């Protein structure tokens, strides 16, 4: 995995500290070209991996990435599903209605032949169909890691239905020759659960920041788990939605050898450049300290 991964929240109006800012961002990134422009800036600053939700708008962006030579070595880490799409659909259409809406028509018809009986026998096949439906937009693009969004990971974790996490892990490896990643707000609990199912050294993306924001069970527990280096770890929400100054925030995460990658999103060249430089500098410092030990 690359040390720095570019995130997409800013493009789709996700801001954890201000609904107002999130609306302003939604206006700013109304056009797909404005998103591509920022991705280009990130590439110029040396960030070649984009982690993004399977938002409807990504399909168009993927179209450009597929067809333009300048993205030849570009990598995307898809994160599925785009939860609000499904949550709103379930409120409006019910569970069955949503499945009908989001499964590709012909596949659903095939499934519908077996109807309920098919799904009752095999929910894991249904999961595979949904993964395929979400992955369609990335055809022809390098997707070395495919993530399950935290709302699904954590839901299954809480329900204790970890067979699905294992099945996702296997399916992504077999079908897409990719590594499965899990986004979670519950790192310690998830890691224990995955290990108990025989998944060693999983790829996990989770909130890690100096103020302990969205680190369930508390910062101390997280720090202990990070130091144990039992998983390939991507730190997200490192700025705690803007509550920590960039220098302080990045110094904190770069100090851990147990953190492999840092995910951040930004909209301006100065912020992208600044964060990239800070991560490079602090990471070198940490490497130097440990190489002397």
């Amino acid at each position, binding site marked *: 995995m690359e040390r720095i991964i570019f995130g997409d929240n800013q493009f789709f109006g996700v801001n954890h500290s201000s609904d107002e800012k999130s*609306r302003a961002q*939604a206006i700013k990134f109304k056009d797909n070209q404005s998103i591509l422009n920022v991705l280009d800036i990130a590439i110029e600053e040396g960030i070649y991996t984009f982690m993004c939700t399977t938002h409807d708008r990504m399909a168009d962006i993927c179209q450009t990435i597929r067809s333009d030579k300048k993205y030849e070595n570009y990598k995307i880490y898809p994160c599925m599903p785009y939860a609000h799409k499904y949550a709103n659909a379930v409120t409006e259409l019910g569970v069955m209605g949503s499945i009908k809406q989001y499964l590709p028509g012909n596949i659903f018809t095939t499934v519908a032949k077996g109807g309920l009986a098919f*799904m*009752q026998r095999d929910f894991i096949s249904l999961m595979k169909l949904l993964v395929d439906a979400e992955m369609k937009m990335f055809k022809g693009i390098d997707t070395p890691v495919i993530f399950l969004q935290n709302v699904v990971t*954590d*839901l*299954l974790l809480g329900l*204790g239905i970890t067979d699905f996490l294992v099945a996702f892990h296997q399916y992504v490896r077999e079908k897409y020759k990719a590594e499965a990643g899990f986004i979670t707000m*519950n790192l310690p609990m998830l890691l224990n659960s995955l290990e108990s199912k025989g998944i060693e050294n999983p790829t996990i993306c989770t909130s890690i920041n100096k103020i302990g924001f969205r680190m369930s069970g508390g910062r101390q527990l997280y720090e202990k788990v990070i130091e144990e280096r039992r998983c390939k770890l991507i730190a997200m929400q490192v700025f705690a939605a803007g509550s920590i100054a960039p220098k302080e925030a990045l110094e904190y995460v770069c100090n851990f050898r147990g953190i492999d990658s840092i995910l951040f999103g930004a909209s301006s060249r100065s912020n992208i450049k600044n964060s990239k430089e800070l991560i490079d500098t602090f990471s070198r410092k940490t490497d130097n300290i440990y190489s002397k030990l």
Partner: protein
Amino acid sequence: MIRTGIIGLGKMGISHCAILGAHPDVNLVSVCDSSALVITGFKKYSRFECFSDYKKMIDSMNLEAVVIATPTKFHGEMVMYALNKNIHVFCEKPFLLNPNEGKLLSDLAKKQNLVNQVGYHNRFIGTFYELKNLLRLNVIGELYHFLGESYGPVVLKEKNPTWRTEKGQGGGCLYDYASHTIDLINFLLAKPVEVAGTQLKSIFSKDVEDAVYSTLILETGLTGQLSVNWSDETYRKMTTQITLLGKGGKIISDATELKIFLKQENENLGLTKGWTIKNITTLTQNVNFYLRGEEYSSQIDHFINAIKTKSTTTSSFDSATITDEVITLLMKDISSN
């Protein structure tokens, strides 16, 4: 460990199920749903005992607590059954279609010394909680107006109906969305006792309203506006905002930000003259298990804690009944228009 069961595995029920399943003080033993598909899935993959008849579950599982997350029209009989079997009840919102029933159930819960809570989760959001504290300290002086708003993208085009879009089932924007806003107004300010100029607008739905606009008069005499619309796709998800105007300043709060404007500095609270912005990142407490928002875990923690300490809850049957009464007032106002 509190032996707990869940009735109803829709969107909220499944979410509660995960939170209870991960809770260190809860032994979630059983689930119940009328959908064969859902129950088959749970039977096959989960560790819980599965039922399709809630009475059978309650009669056989020796539960101490139950979470009811079915459509609103079923709440009354289910809550009653559980209370009569001496079980603590957490019920989803809106509580009941008939507010008269609320008083009965509340009295029964009190008589039986049972913990009772309704799932108005905004009461557990850090920004709104802080806002309540500031109001207690009278930080913007005498209030003269409020605005309670909720917007989101639920019904965006004409579609086939589900229970949420059918009349008389607890569906519609009034029950589903506006109940949250009304409850928050009651929590932060006071009980609404009168309504006026109500507009219930169907935008895309055939049988129910997609927007609610009204004037609310609180028991303190304070008046303000309610503006709720679930057909607004400029919002990515449901967003609730409260604006308060006082003689000494103004406060605007949603689930992420608390914006305070003061005419004069408040030294005691360390608030400067002009704008102060507080974010949820510093106003929220970590939870042991996170799913969708701290408030969903916090409200369950609160319920479980009330059972352990034999205390009352902040979102009781009593307070939820007030919200049901206001919903009834709004509907009456429309029919008299």
